[in-house]
């Protein structure tokens, strides 16, 4: 297992290299000018000589390949450059915000997986029943709904109409310190909306997996032995039906990141995804490049996680074969 993980990590390195290279290539092909971004409005009145000197100082007179190499070598040393929009080092921006994004995603994902399993099993128990039809059509509608729209409607209902939950931020505006209870109450809405956006996919796959398993021989055998419906459903059908789903969990990381990006920006959650939007609006290249690389790394870790889960839960798979 450690060998598999090691080998996958070796494969991940070239992917990250190519992605960072692509990021620099896109930037080089775009009309974006780092000098003007650096100097801001001052660049408008400056003469060409000053701009050229600035260009040289920033190192942007060199081809993008050498800039990429320079970025890469300093990134490996922990220096990701300076974020112009946040006015602090990129590594510091990421360090401060990563914890809040991870908290949001982890809570949302756990809630989505648990609720999705329960709903999926309920729907699979009697295909075509009222419960099944309600769950399935709700799931398809939610899958089609934009997550930022759900988030806005949730703000309207829970924060404005009912007044039970805060509409956004990490703490109350009056509060000076970040306390666990404040964070918890501010986490409910964003995590809930993110969970609801990940829920339909999970529910439908669990329903599919358990439904298929219910029609297979082991379940028929279990029924024939006179086991209770509960044991058949949870002990046999769910166990084998959940297997293909678990392995897909790791591959949901891109959707989770996408969802978090939109949810964080609606709820002003001080996470890393909201920083991406700010970086994009202000064309803050160092921050954008670092965040794109980070998200790619997260996706690769998710894929590795999926492979490991697959091997752990399916006794037929040997790690040496993978």
């Amino acid at each position: 297992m450690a060998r598999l993980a090691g080998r996958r990590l070796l494969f991940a390195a070239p992917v990250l290299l190519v992605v960072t290279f692509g990021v620099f290539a896109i930037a080089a092909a775009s009309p974006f000018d780092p000098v003007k971004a650096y100097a801001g409005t001052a660049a408008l009145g400056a003469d060409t000589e000053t701009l050229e000197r600035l260009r040289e100082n920033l190192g942007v007179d060199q081809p993008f390949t050498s800039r990429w190499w320079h970025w890469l070598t300093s990134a490996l040393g922990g220096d990701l450059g300076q974020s112009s929009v946040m006015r602090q080092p990129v590594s510091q921006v990421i360090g401060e915000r990563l914890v809040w994004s991870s908290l949001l995603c982890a809570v949302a994902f756990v809630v989505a997986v648990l609720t999705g399993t329960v709903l999926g099993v309920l729907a699979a128990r009697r295909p075509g029943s009222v419960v099944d039809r309600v769950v399935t059509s709700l799931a398809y509608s939610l899958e089609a709904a934009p997550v930022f729209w759900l988030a806005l409607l949730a703000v309207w209902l829970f924060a404005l109409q009912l007044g039970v939950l805060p509409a956004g931020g990490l703490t109350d505006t009056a509060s000076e310190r970040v306390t666990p209870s404040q964070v918890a109450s501010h986490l409910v809405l964003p995590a809930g909306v993110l969970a609801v956006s990940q829920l339909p996919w999970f529910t439908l796959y669990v329903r599919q997996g358990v439904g298929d398993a219910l029609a297979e021989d082991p379940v028929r055998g279990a029924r024939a032995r006179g086991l209770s419906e509960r044991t058949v459903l949870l002990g046999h059908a769910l166990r084998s039906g959940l297997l293909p789903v678990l392995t897909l969990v790791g591959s949901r990381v891109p959707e989770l990141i996408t969802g978090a990006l939109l949810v964080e920006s609606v709820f002003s959650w001080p996470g890393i995804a909201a920083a991406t939007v700010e970086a994009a609006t202000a064309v803050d290249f160092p921050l954008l490049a670092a965040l794109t690389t980070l998200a790619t790394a997260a996706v690769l870790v998710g894929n590795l996680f999926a492979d490991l889960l697959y091997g752990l839960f399916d006794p037929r798979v040997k790690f040496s074969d993978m």
Partner: protein
Amino acid sequence: MRVSVALVGGIVLAVLLVPPLVQLDQQAVDLGAKLLPPSWSHPFGTDDLGRDLLLRCIYGLRVSLLVGVAAALTATVIGTAVGATAGALGGWVDRGVMRVVDTVASVPHLLLGIFIVAMFRPGLWPVVVSVALTHWLSTARIVRAEVLSLRSHPYIDAAVSGGASRWRVAVRHLLPAVLPQAALAAALMVPHAMWHESALSFLGLGLPTHMASLGNLIQDARGSLLAGQWWPTLFPGLFIIVPTLAIAGLAGAWRERINPRRRSELML
């Protein structure tokens, strides 16, 4: 199925016919009628500048569908070309191309889209290009798999031993057989592309505000929502959900027709 056909037909008719038929300018500002709740004269209510929201939604859907269809077509052309090349040539070309596909696929779509739009400044073409460049991967995989399974068919062997060139086999024999799958992927991609565009526009990184898409409408409505008016937010969202479900329903029926064996597969 029938519901889906009726809905897609209705959407296409509304998007094509309403703008020329309605005399009223959708941008007509009427501050005396701002933020009216839904009523008989304004079924969806009015926005903060007194514009009729039903009309705004239809125009928004028109813009979103246009972007969605343009991006989906571009992505399908790229994906089919790449997938067919990889599958038909095989060997190191195939391995190299699929490695590139895997690499691009490991960057989250929306993030790559945001990066492209941020570098090229928001606007119609950057949005279409960014959506197309992030969505061709699945089509390339599907088309490649299809070409690989077709290559072992006797009629391809017959064509090759009959002296047909590589190019002729690819264009005359492989491509027509792959087209139904590619068309299915394209149809399913339209709602994806619409969703993507609306997310970009919502973040303020998409279409300019004078080309109000559904995402722009939801973004514009944020102020009214915080003041308690729900209708300017609710209806544009429904205009994204209903076409998505209708297109998915139609595509599902189409898929059952072209490969009945895979009936139980999920449509997501």
